[in-house]
């Protein structure tokens, strides 16, 4: 482990470097925002770094947090020093074992980057709702407020747990602390070792289970003994606070950094005191200082040891002058008298006998990383000074429903101009965040300045906007909130000038740097009025650079990061220019030196060229344009989109009041279409003269941004100029017209459609029916054409032949999601909505598909003209199969109810109609359409019947139309965390369909290995390359016999995919489709995703098959292999194209060769198994006869 004492790291790393060194076993599982702690540990273990005891800790990824909890419990019982990391739902899965670990008085530290527990919605961001759910487990709870504290108190936790024998939950705020980069003074190995009592370590080992000295733990106890035995542990909890205190004292002597169980900060004679835990304490302290400097008498109690709660320590630290306390909870406990910390303080004062002289108020703040700023702290102190301070208030939001929120106070400048604050607006793909992390490192490591970096991302996986918040100052930066006033604003994408108010937070006189293709002489005139006005009014120093040109000239591609970083150093004045440039160059050498000399050289050249292209703009004295920034959404958008979605899109969601939101998390569908992101620099252009009308472009488009229609020529009336239309070639729509149309503002420019397009110009094969062309000149005309295209009626579903071509004439009801450009999952989901969207329920496991499926501000699932569309919900990660099954059970139950009622009312609605409704054949689109007509007729009849039964049947009548339930999720869900539930659902008779979007990694959390990771691939937690074969989920599912199973890859054989979806839907029992999904975690340009799919199939690692029990029932082999049964090429031909495999070659060529050989063997083994299964005929038993046929 590094001995370097000053490190520029975030809170996760700060905690992990303690946990790693103090532990021998680390059982982990990825979950945001704690994943990085496990990843650091895994990387260090892979490098062979040793812990304090001279061994390399064993880092074991488990199938879930429940699994990790079990593994650490076992490791602890067998005498290892163990630790783990988690958050949110993951922490909830730890809870059963936490009771056990605490009940057995086991030293252990669980480091938690505290995150919101999903309620009406999931949130990956930070609050204390997860840790508060653990109060009853018996764990001690220690809270850190900053990355430095996350390091220091991690050490205190590891030290204290050994002495106290009480396990510790050490937590800090998810994102705000876990992801804040700061200058952290780290403990050396000697220092950390001296914190950990060797005798206590030995005692822990002495309690280990061993057959050499056997004892028994985990007994079952009865009413006669359990209670007393539980009380027997009291002494340990009574001693725990003083042990923590003494460890803190010891730590203080060692490092000079002093902590107490409760730290008081502020006026010694304070009358108003805030009690708070976590990063918010830093804000409260800085604000208290500012107020006290202006005559106030206020203070802050920072809670570190929350459990066991020491009343004596708390009351001792409170100034005797305290009259009023405001207790702030970063959690919500609906229905409670107050939030947990508030109740503890009320009880503590009561028990201490001082409740009568101190009034206590409680309030909530900061849920889901909601900002908590000095202005909010000020408003809390202000309110405490009121005659009747509010209780159970909220701060940081506007509650116009229950009116609990405090009014906002003026923002104090707590920095007193001593801190340099800079804001950078960029795209994820332009490297802005990476460059800023590098800047922080340079300044933090090479100067005496303190640094702080925090990064905000939007919710999209493609074209994501990033905002970097960087502070530099002479003192530690106690400001865990976003920048409110910037000395420097960098806008790294010119497009933003028309989309956001990037200068809103610029201070008067600040420096503004804009990356633009326009030169300094004319750029001002090109800006919208609002921006011009800001520049003039605030007297900004305005600089421009054409970073794209510099990047292009120096071979940097789209990465403008180094160039913009150089500009920052050149004009911000944070460091002397020459010194700064030298430092960037040194840092480039350090960062990329190992990766490749060419990369270093290009970056160095880019730095040298940058200064030649950096110009200051001569700003006029007044605005020169009347052009305003265009609205973010069309004025035609529905009211909700205008009122709520548009505000969120503008980055102003914080301003929305409580009344804007549905109270149960229900959200309208189909809002993604109103967000025109324009992220593609190039879009496909259709050449109708070459097109062979195969519709493959529409099939592969991950964002439904290229579509096809066949329609009557009369629909062309009023077509905008340039709208392309040709005669349709198929027989199913004779004399129809045909159009391929791109949605120019929704396309991500991934080129998947262009790569798949098979139609080449015979005279000039370089030209295809789809070629990419710059979007900007096409945007307006194509927008108009796309709008017109949408007006053209959809082809009648019942006339469409459901092959791959036909399926694309079905309207997609999943569009413009935030998935990555070239995503390999979304084409399956889109197809699902095309085939069954108007009668589809989706239970979606947490993961990529739930994020691009339901991460606000916008929603990609949408409706058809009749208002029907997929009904979608996400419960959790681990329970999705069960959740989906529940939906099916409800449908069955409602159908049974409807059937009963119909039978009762049949004489009155008509026996024929009733029989037709009950016996309807809905196996095809015509049947479904006919049934919808019958339901309409039924409703008509019911209107005339005035009974309760008739009303009930009206409510249930839609259930006569067949519904299809799909359980969608990734391989992390299906193979790992949700496998138990998935297996149980497969083992049921119910008609549910499971779609596994198999990327072979936990994609959403950053590419950690799952049991679906292919042999030989490198993934996080399998850095050296996975040596175990991928689990054959299909084979497991087949073992039941009644399950429909298919393995598909649309890039290899799309018609097979369509068939599998249809057969799964038609199958009366459970079905599962395992779908090959390429992913950015595979490490290649996803425009070639379909090529890789084909190679995967042809080399035998992903044979396409379908197993239909109904075929088996006829005596035929249930399994049929559709492609890839006999490998046509070597596995290596597939793997050599992907970085995840080649990475192994780069690090260990021998291992690579061995793994490749194993993978080849494995492919042959699997294809051989399938071949034999495809020949397997099972004798059928004739019903009633007892004989076989």
């Amino acid at each position, binding site marked *: 482990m590094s001995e370097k004492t000053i490190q520029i790291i975030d809170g996760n790393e700060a905690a992990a470097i303690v946990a790693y060194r103090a532990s021998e076993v680390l059982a982990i599982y990825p979950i*945001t*925002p704690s*994943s*990085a702690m496990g990843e650091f540990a*895994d*990387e260090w273990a*892979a490098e062979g770094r040793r812990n304090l005891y001279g061994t390399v800790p064993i880092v074991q990824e488990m199938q879930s947090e429940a699994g990790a909890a079990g593994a650490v419990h076992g490791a602890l019982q067998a005498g290892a020093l163990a630790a783990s990391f988690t958050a949110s739902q993951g922490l909830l899965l730890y809870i059963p074992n936490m009771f056990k670990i605490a009940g057995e008085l086991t030293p252990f530290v669980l480091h938690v980057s505290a995150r919101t527990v999903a309620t009406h919605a999931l949130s*990956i961001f930070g609050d204390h709702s997860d840790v508060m759910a653990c109060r009853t487990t018996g764990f001690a709870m220690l809270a850190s407020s900053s990355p430095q504290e996350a390091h220091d108190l991690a050490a205190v936790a590891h030290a204290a747990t050994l002495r106290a024998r009480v396990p510790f939950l050490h937590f800090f705020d998810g*994102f705000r602390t876990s992801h804040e980069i700061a200058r952290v003074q780290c403990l050396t190995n000697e220092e950390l070792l001296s914190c950990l009592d060797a005798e206590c370590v030995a005692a822990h080992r002495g309690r280990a289970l061993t057959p050499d000295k056997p004892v028994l733990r985990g007994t079952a106890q009865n009413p006669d003994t359990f209670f007393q035995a539980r009380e027997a542990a009291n002494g340990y909890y009574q001693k725990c606070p003083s042990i923590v205190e003494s460890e803190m004292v010891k730590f203080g002597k060692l490092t000079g950094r002093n902590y107490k169980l409760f730290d008081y900060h502020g006026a010694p004679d304070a009358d108003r005191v805030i009690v708070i835990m976590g990063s918010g304490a830093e804000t409260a302290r800085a604000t208290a200082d500012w107020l006290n400097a202006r005559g106030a008498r206020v203070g802050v109690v920072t809670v570190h040891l929350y459990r066991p709660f020491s009343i004596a320590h708390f009351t001792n630290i409170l100034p005797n002058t305290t009259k009023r306390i405001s207790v702030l909870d970063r959690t919500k406990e609906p229905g409670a008298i107050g939030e947990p910390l508030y109740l503890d303080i009320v009880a503590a004062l009561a028990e201490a006998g001082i409740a009568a002289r101190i009034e206590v108020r409680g309030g909530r703040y900061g849920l889901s990383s909601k900002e908590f700023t000095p202005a909010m702290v000020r408003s809390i102190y202000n309110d405490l000074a009121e005659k009747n301070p509010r209780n159970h208030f909220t701060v940081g939001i506007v509650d116009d429903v229950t009116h609990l929120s405090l009014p906002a106070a003026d923002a104090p400048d707590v920095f007193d101009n001593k801190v340099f604050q800079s804001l950078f607006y960029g*795209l*994820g*793909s332009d*490297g*802005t*965040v*990476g460059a800023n*992390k590098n800047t922080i490192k340079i300044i933090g490591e090479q100067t005496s300045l303190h640094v702080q970096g925090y*990064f905000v*991302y939007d919710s999209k*996986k493609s074209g*994501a906007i*990033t905002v970097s918040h960087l502070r530099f100052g002479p003192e530690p930066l106690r400001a865990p909130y976003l920048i409110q006033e910037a000395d420097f604003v960098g806008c790294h994408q010119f497009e933003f000038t028309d989309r956001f108010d990037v200068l809103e937070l610029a201070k008067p006189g600040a420096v503004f740097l804009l990356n633009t293709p326009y030169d300094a002489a004319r750029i001002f005139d090109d800006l919208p009025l609002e921006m011009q006005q800001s520049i003039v009014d605030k007297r900004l120093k305005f600089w421009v650079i054409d970073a794209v040109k510099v990047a292009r000239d120096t*071979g940097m*591609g*789209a*990465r403008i990061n180094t160039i913009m970083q150089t500009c920052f150093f050149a004009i911000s004045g944070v460091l002397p220019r020459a010194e700064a440039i030298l430092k960037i160059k040194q840092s480039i050498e350090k960062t990329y030196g*190992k*990766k*490749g*000399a*060419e*990369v270093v*050289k*290009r970056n160095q*050249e880019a730095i040298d060229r940058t200064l030649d292209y950096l110009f200051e703009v001569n700003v006029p004295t007044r605005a020169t344009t009347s052009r305003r920034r265009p609205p973010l959404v069309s004025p035609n958008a529905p009211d909700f989109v205008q009122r709520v979605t548009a505000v969120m899109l503008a980055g102003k969601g914080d301003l929305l009041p409580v009344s804007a939101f549905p109270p149960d998390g229900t959200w309208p569908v189909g809002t993604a279409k109103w967000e025109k992101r324009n992220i593609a620099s190039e879009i496909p252009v259709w050449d109708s003269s070459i097109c062979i009308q195969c519709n493959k472009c529409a099939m592969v488009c991950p964002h439904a941004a290229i579509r096809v229609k066949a329609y009557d020529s009369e629909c062309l009336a009023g077509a905008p100029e340039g709208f392309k239309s040709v005669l349709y070639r198929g027989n199913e729509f004779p004399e129809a017209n045909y159009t391929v149309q791109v949605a120019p503002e929704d396309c991500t420019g991934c080129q998947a459609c262009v790569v798949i397009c098979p139609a*080449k110009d015979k005279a000039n*094969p370089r030209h295809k029916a789809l070629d990419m062309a710059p979007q900007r000149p096409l945007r307006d005309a194509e927008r108009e054409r796309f709008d017109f295209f949408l007006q053209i009626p959809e082809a009648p579903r019942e006339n469409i032949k459901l092959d791959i071509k036909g399926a694309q004439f079905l309207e997609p009801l999943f569009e413009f999601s935030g998935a990555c450009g070239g995503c390999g999952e979304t084409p399956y989901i889109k197809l699902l909505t095309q085939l069954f969207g108007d009668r589809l329920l989706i239970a979606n496991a947490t993961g990529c598909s739930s*994020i691009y499926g339901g991460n606000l501000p916008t929603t990609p699932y949408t409706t058809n003209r009749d208002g029907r569309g997929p009904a979608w919900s996400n419960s959790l990660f681990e329970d999705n199969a069960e959740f989906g099954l529940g939906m099916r059970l409800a449908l069955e139950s409602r159908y049974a109810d409807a059937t009963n009622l119909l039978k009762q009312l049949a004489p009155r609605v008509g026996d024929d109609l009733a029989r037709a409704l009950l016996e309807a054949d809905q196996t095809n689109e015509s049947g479904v359409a006919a049934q919808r007509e019958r339901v309409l007729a039924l409703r008509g009849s019911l209107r005339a019947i005035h009974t309760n039964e008739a009303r009930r049947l009206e409510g249930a009548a839609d259930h006569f139309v067949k519904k299809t339930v799909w359980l969608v999720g990734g391989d992390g869900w299906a193979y790992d965390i949700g496998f138990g539930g998935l297996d149980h659902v497969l083992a049921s008779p119910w008609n549910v369909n499971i779609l596994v979007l198999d990327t072979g990694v936990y994609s*959403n*959390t*950053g*590419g950690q290995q799952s049991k679906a990771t292919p042999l030989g691939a*490198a*993934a*996080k*937690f*399998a*850095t*050296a390359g996975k040596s175990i074969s991928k689990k054959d989920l299909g084979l497991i599912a087949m073992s039941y016999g009644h399950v429909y199973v298919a393995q598909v890859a649309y890039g290899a054989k799309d018609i097979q995919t369509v068939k599998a979806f249809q057969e799964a839907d038609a199958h009366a029992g459970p079905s599962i489709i395992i779908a090959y999904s390429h992913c*950015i*975690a595979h*490490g*290649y*340009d996803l425009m070639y995703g379909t090529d890789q799919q084909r190679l995967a199939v042809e080399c035998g690692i992903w044979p396409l098959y379908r197993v239909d029990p109904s075929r088996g029932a006829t005596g035929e082999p249930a399994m049929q292999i559709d492609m890839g049964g006999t490998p046509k090429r070597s596995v290596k031909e597939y793997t050599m194209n992907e*970085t*995840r495999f080649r*990475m192994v070659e*780069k*690090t*260990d060529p021998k291992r690579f060769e061995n793994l490749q050989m194993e993978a080849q063997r494995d492919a042959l083994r699997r294809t051989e198994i399938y071949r034999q299964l495809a020949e397997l005929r099972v004798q059928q038993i004739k019903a009633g006869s007892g004989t076989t046929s």
Partner: protein
Amino acid sequence: MDLSTTWLGLELPHPLIVGASPIVDDFDLVRRAEDAGAAAIVMHSLFEEQIELENITHDAIGAHGNSFAEAATFLPKPHEFVLGPDAYLEQIRKLKKAVAIPVIASLNGATNAGWLHYAKLIEDAGADALELNVYTVGHDPEKTSMDIEQGVVDMVRRVVRETSLPVAVKLSPQWTSLTHFARELEAAGARGLVLFNRFYQPDIDPEHLDVAMRLHLSDSTELPLRLRWLALLSGRLSLSLAASGGVHTGLDAVKTVMAGAHAVQLVSSLLAHGPEHLAVVREQLTKWLEDHEYQSLRQAQGSMNLSRCPRPEMYERGNYIKILQGYTRMML
């Protein structure tokens, strides 16, 4: 038999060396080649395009990083992971440790661009010499033959400036005035020429309207082209010459040496028969020289070049007439 020769200033026990090929990727094959007596090995080329590609890969991996709140990266960060060009340098270091014979690195490119600075890095990694594989296809109508030649000369000059290693230039046969051009290269600092590069010949896939790349192994029919140009250059320049392409037997080697080669690169024959084939060719070469009572290889070296052969016109148009006439006679 004294087979010793000097190639690029390297004193070699005999002229047979392993040409640029995938053989160097496999240490077992390299050791077998050394055991078979190879005088030196040339590494497979580090391609300009490869350097480019690795940069693109680097960008592609980074492109998705720091874009999304839940994950700053999507691939693991192995400690030892290095991209292609640096892996190449590492391979030089490993080869130098593994074998005692000279290791000649190879750079393959067409532009006078940043990749050339790899020459210095290759030197630092321990290579004994550098083969600059110039692969230009004159497809640009704006460029004159002089532009193209000057481009290569500049490239050589730049590489020679970057490194103190002896530099050989591997050429294609398609130069209008190869003799003059060779002199220019010599003036630019080249210490040797390798004749010739064998192009990867593109083929057409009519089914998919696409271009397919094919690589055919050479055979002895490709030798005469080398022999002619070796003979035309030998003795007229002070730089050393090597043949590449078409040498499969000891007799091929004899002819090549007689035409003026100081070194003979073997690739296709080794790929076809294994590295041990080098010993066979060497044995055949020795035997031929012994049978014909030569005292040393140097005695034969250049004996059939333009200035010493009995009928020099045969390397010029005479050769052309003779073959045509011979062919006509065969037809008759």
